[in-house]
């Protein structure tokens, strides 16, 4: 007999997420047989951006998310640079890479320890106070010395992620929400002293990643080996590529590419379509590319259950994130599942941190980090990058020297999307189907699968188009 339950709030994610689960017993195993992923907050950034000076976009779009603001600053800078017809000079590219890298490290550490680890550790007798109680406590959680060691590292990791932001602010001015990302480069002028201080913290972070973070992922993965294959999802990956190694952006530390239906392919963003059959938008908005799409909110639409649209690449569901990037780039292809997402994220933190040391060497004190270009009367641009959580794109246009359209598709839109018009479940929804649930009152297995994607909901809820009044009725 199937049970339908709503799990909400899903905590230890960014933003507002609920999931509706259908749980039944199949072949003697109680498990998820159907899932609906629901984004439950809406602000309307596209409407907010239209009509503004284009140069404000690198700052306003960062406020979409305070965990990955730098990625939005990067995507916005790249889109504006295409629209303005300017390229950041080498120092500017390097500063942006370094501030973005610092935030990657901060975000990945935050994810494993502070968002994710509570699913695996029984902290009874170790941290018997809120916010660590109340909690689910299941027999499979690690206890004893292993648990104590992980909790000790959870506390140490709070300091390490703080230091990662401290490091990023050496060139970024402040974090979250760095003011130095501008169309044309970065405002900061790097000094030898800054490089030295940045490198000092980077060295400590690299030690922590190598000796603690990666080892703790191995500990958890070993204790929960069944999660190598639990939570597989669609098995397709999308990466726009990130961390440009040259000013034209032709070579990246993690390359642009796809893994679709078992083979590696190139990415042409003109192939992206968003579907809305199960999203609260009019049917006429469906099957559109972000550059030319329309949006008419339709909050009472029968059958719809989410404010997130369903982005698809040539009608296939794709997962975004560290596993996608590392898989496409050839750095990690050990498998697809919860543990592989955790490990790929940790190994990516190492890869990025190691590369940052090289970028520090490439900075030239005294060279320009910014190229001025006046605001054009018209223009259009696409900025593609990768946030810690996956593929991020900004599509924008300028008319009469003002923003006349701005569209954003975030990684969590790819991951937490609802079904598309053909009924294909989104990535997290697919990953949840088949997940065992031993105790329906403590569905920690569901949390482990969801958390492995590191969802960021503020990014993923779609934004209305100009002229559309938002009518909001969420099916509860």
């Amino acid at each position, binding site marked *: 007999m199937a049970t339908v339950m709503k799990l*909400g*709030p899903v*905590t*230890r994610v960014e*933003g507002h997420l609920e999931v509706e689960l259908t749980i039944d017993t199949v072949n003697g195993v109680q498990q998820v047989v159907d899932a609906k992923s629901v984004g*439950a907050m*809406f*602000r*309307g950034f596209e409407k*907010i951006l*239209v*009509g*503004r*000076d284009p*140069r404000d976009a690198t*700052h*306003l779009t960062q*406020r*979409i*998310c*305070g*965990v990955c603001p730098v990625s939005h600053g990067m995507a916005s800078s790249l889109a504006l640079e295409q629209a303005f017809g300017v390229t950041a000079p080498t120092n500017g590219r390097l500063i942006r890479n370094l501030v973005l890298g610092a935030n990657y490290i901060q975000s990945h550490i935050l994810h494993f320890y*502070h968002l994710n680890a509570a699913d695996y550790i029984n902290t009874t007798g170790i941290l018997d*106070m*809120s*916010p660590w*109680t*109340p*909690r*689910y406590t299941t027999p499979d959680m690690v206890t004893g010395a292993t648990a104590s060691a992980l909790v000790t590292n959870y506390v140490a990791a*709070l*300091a390490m992620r*703080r*230091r990662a*932001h*401290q490091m*990023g*602010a*050496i060139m970024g*001015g*402040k974090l*979250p*929400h760095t*003011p*130095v990302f*501008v169309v044309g480069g970065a405002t*900061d*002028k790097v*000094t030898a002293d800054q490089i030295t201080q940045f490198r000092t913290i980077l060295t400590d972070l690299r030690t922590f990643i190598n000796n603690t973070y990666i080892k703790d992922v191995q500990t958890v993965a070993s204790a929960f080996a069944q999660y190598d294959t639990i939570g597989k999802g669609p098995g397709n990956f999308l990466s726009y590529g990130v961390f440009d190694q040259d000013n034209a952006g032709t070579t990246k530390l993690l390359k642009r590419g796809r893994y679709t239906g078992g083979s590696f392919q190139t990415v042409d963003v003109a192939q992206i379509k968003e579907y809305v059959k199960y999203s609260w938008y009019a049917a006429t908005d469906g099957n559109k590319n972000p550059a030319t799409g329309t949006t008419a909110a339709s*909050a009472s639409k029968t059958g719809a259950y989410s404010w997130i649209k369903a982005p698809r690449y040539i009608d296939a569901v794709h997962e975004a994130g560290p596993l996608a990037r590392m898989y496409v780039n050839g750095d990690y292809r050990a498998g697809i599942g919860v543990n592989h997402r955790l490990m790929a994220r940790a190994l990516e933190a190492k890869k990025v941190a190691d590369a940052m040391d090289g970028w520090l060497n490439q900075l030239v004190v005294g060279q*320009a980090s*910014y190229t*001025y270009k006046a605001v054009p009367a018209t223009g259009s641009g696409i900025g593609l990058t990768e946030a810690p959580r996956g593929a991020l794109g900004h599509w924008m246009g300028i008319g009469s020297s003002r923003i006349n359209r701005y569209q954003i598709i975030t990684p969590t839109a790819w991951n937490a999307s609802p079904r598309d018009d053909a009924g294909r479940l989104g990535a997290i929804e697919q990953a949840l189907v088949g997940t065992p649930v031993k105790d329906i009152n403590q569905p920690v297995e569901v949390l482990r699968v969801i958390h492995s994607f590191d969802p960021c909901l*503020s990014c993923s809820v779609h934004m209305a188009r*100009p002229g559309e009044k*938002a009518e*909001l*009725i*969420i099916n*509860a």
Partner: protein
Amino acid sequence: MDLTRRDFLKASSAVGAALGLTASGVLDLQESYAKEGGLPVIWLTGSSCTGCSVSVLNSIYYATIDNLLINTLDMEYHTQLSAAAGALAVKAMEDRRKAGGYALVVEGAIPTADTGKGCYVWPGMTMLSAVKSYAANATMIIACGTCASFGGVAAAAPNPTAAKSVQAVVGTAKPLINIPGCPVHPDWIVGTIASYLSTKKLPTLDSNRRPTAYYGATVHSACGWRTQYVGPSHHSKGKPCTTCHSSNMGHIIAGVLGDSGCMYGLGCKGPLTYADCPNRRWNSGTANTPGMHWCVSAYAPCNGCTQPNFPDGMSPFYAMSGTATTNTGGTTSGTTSGGTTSGDRERDDD
């Protein structure tokens, strides 16, 4: 004379006022608190980017976050930190609400269009309803960040969800402190909580309900480029001042981003913005020690993120204040301007 950035930072510190409660003061506080049990906190997030929470995780000047969570606060619900999910988390929150005796912290603005359905804090419970019911039983309310304090980016024109500030939704029947910033600086909220716990009183607030300890002076008043500040009479509107950009005049004006000098002509809103950023700076690595940088020392003009009219009244960010600006179809805030309520000083022009 060409002011180097090092000179600029030294000049900022020399002008600086006291930064408020010191780390040793908070340590005393923590010792006394450990005996009594922590301050219960319910932290509700609305139309938010979570940047304020991330910023609070960066706290170190007065206390680190682990110190706060273990020794000072009973964080009974926080979306990013709480181990519990679903019904278990809701029960914990609701039990505390019924018991009372907690501080309600609100991050993000509150959407009010369509009876608040732009944000749910748990299935069936809108942020609008939750803020009202949790405010009713709270002993005090802290609006954390500019969105909660004044609407902020969430309420930027045309404000598709009719997002509002905490004050606009629940009024001031309960003690309410606004701690704006985009994001909030961790010291501003941690220091305010520490001050409240040690004195058992609200700190002195300005007319925007911001603690004067942190928001009592403009960014401009402590800025290291201040000796180089040249007001609008020396500038052509919207253009950098080429007449002054020579050592003969003794004024150092930034002509384009990245130049040393006053960035007023590049859109710096420091004269309009109340915050202690020049002295406290951001992302410190050491207790009782300011950070290395802030926006201006990274050659980025201040964009006024602690002010009630952020962002619309500060937009375009790179247009000189005092020039007429409009932003979007729909309502606008008109010209850039300073604090709009009585009691705040006029734009600091000297």
